[in-house]
C-alpha cells in the first residue's frame, strides 16, 4: 500500500495525499482549514480493507501525519510559542492566569446563554426565505462631478482609425502563374521558386505558391525542398506523370 496515493475526500481537499502534501508545502492550501482527523480516518479505512498489517505504510503515514499536525499546530498559534518561550516563569504564570480568567468569563457567558435558551424555549417564529422580496435598488454613492466628467472625456475620445488596407488587396488570378510556370518549364527543366517570384509582392507570392501546388496536384511538376526554409526547387514532372494524372483525376471527381 502506498501512502502517498491514498485518496482523500475532505471538505477542504479532494484527491491523493501526495498532491495534498505538495499543495501544503507550496502554501497553496491553508493547513488550518484542513481536517487532519479526516485523513487519519481515510487511512484507517484503507488499512481495514486489508488482511495483513502493512507496517511500512503505517510508519510512513505516522511520520507524515505527525509532521502535518505539527505544522497545523504552529499555524494555529503563530506567535504563541515564541511569546511564551520568551516569558519569565512569573510572566508566563500571569499570562496563563489572564487567559484562564478570560476562559472563565466565556464559560459564564455560555451558562447565561443556556439559561436564556431554556427561559426563551417557548418562542416560535416563522423562518425561511423572504417571499419574493423586491430588492430595493441601492442608489449610487455620491460622485464628484469633476471625476465623472473626466471619465466621460476618456470615453468620448475618438477611437483610433482602423486600417482597411487589407480590404483593397488585389489577388492576381492563379491561372496567370500557371501559364507563367509552364512557360518557364518549357524553356528550362528546373527552376528555383524563390528566384522566380523574389521580385513580387507578398500577395502575388502567395498566389504563385497556390499555382505551384496546383501544378504539383496535376503531376506537371515535382517539388523538392531539402529542409524547412531551404530554397524550393521545381522540376518538370517525371514519366509517371500520366499515372498520377489519372489518380488525381479520380480524386478530383470524388472530392467534387
Amino acid at each position, binding site marked *: 500500500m502506498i501512502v502517498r496515493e491514498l485518496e482523500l475526500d475532505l471538505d477542504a481537499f479532494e484527491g491523493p495525499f501526495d498532491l495534498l502534501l505538495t499543495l501544503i508545502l507550496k*502554501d497553496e492550501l*491553508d493547513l*488550518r482549514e484542513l*481536517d487532519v482527523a479526516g485523513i487519519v480516518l481515510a487511512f484507517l479505512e484503507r488499512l481495514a480493507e486489508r488482511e495483513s498489517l502493512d507496517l511500512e505504510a503505517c510508519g510512513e503515514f505516522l511520520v507524515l501525519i505527525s509532521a502535518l499536525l505539527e505544522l497545523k499546530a504552529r499555524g*494555529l*498559534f*503563530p506567535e*504563541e510559542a515564541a511569546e511564551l518561550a520568551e516569558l519569565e*516563569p*512569573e510572566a*508566563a*504564570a*500571569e499570562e*496563563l*492566569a489572564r*487567559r*484562564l*480568567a*478570560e*476562559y*472563565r*468569563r*466565556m*464559560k*459564564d*457567558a*455560555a451558562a*447565561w*446563554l*443556556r439559561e*436564556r*435558551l431554556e427561559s*426563551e*424555549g*417557548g*418562542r*416560535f*417564529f*416563522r*423562518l*425561511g*426565505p*423572504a*417571499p419574493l422580496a423586491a430588492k*430595493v435598488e441601492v442608489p449610487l454613492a455620491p460622485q464628484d462631478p469633476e471625476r465623472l466628467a473626466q471619465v466621460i472625456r476618456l470615453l468620448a475620445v475618438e477611437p483610433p482609425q482602423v486600417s482597411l488596407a487589407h480590404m483593397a488587396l488585389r489577388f492576381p488570378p492563379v491561372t496567370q502563374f500557371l501559364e507563367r510556370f509552364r512557360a518557364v518549364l518549357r524553356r528550362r527543366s528546373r527552376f528555383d521558386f524563390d528566384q522566380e517570384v523574389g521580385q513580387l509582392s507578398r500577395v502575388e507570392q502567395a498566389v504563385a505558391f497556390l499555382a505551384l501546388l496546383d501544378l504539383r496536384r496535376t503531376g506537371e511538376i515535382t517539388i523538392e525542398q531539402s529542409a524547412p526554409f531551404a530554397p524550393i526547387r521545381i522540376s518538370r514532372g517525371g514519366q509517371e506523370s500520366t499515372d498520377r494524372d489519372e489518380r488525381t483525376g479520380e480524386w478530383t471527381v470524388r472530392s467534387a
Partner: protein
Amino acid sequence: MDSPLRLIATNPLDQLARTLEALLVVASAPLSVEELAEAADDHPERVEAALGLVRERYTEGRSGIVLEHVAGGWAFRSSRDAAEACARLFEKPAQRNLSQAALETLAIVAYLGPCSRPDIARIRGVAADSAVANLQERGLIAEAGRDDAAGGAIRYRTTPLFERIFGLESLSALPRLDDVGADAEQIRERLHEVAEKRTA
C-alpha cells in the same frame, strides 16, 4: 352595536397599523422601522407610533401572536401560552442539543466577534473546528471576512437568527460579564507557586 361608533372614532394611524400588520405577517425575518416605513410609504415617526398600536393589540395574554422587538427589527412570534402546541407541530433544529463546547464557542463569537477559529481555540484551549462548523450549520454564526494578517483565517459573527432564538434586541442586550475577581486571584496565586517551584 359598538362597531359603527368605533369606526367613527378610528385612530388616524389605524390604516397604517393594518398595513404594518400585513407586512409583519408576510415577513420571515424581523423588519426594521426603516424597512417598514419604506414598504408602507410613510414616515418612520408615524410608523413607530403605529407600531405602538400593533404592539398593544398583539401582547402576551391578549393574542396568540406577539409582536416583539428582536434582532434589530420587529417581528411576530407565537405567544408563550401556545408554546406547547407549537412544539408538537414544529421542531427547533437550530437550538436543539447544543453541546457545552458549542455554547462556549457561541458565547465567544457573540461577545468577541467577529473572531476566527484560532481566536476561539486560544481562549478555549482546544481546536474550535467542529464547534464552529456545527454552529454555522445551525445558522447561529456566519462568516464575516478574514483576519488582516497574512493568510488571514475566516472570521465569524453571530447571525440575526441567534438574536431571535435568544430573544435579544441586539448584541448589546447581552449581559455585561463581570470580571471574575476572587477566582482569578486564586488562580494567579496557585500559578505563581508553581512558577516558583520550577525556578528553584
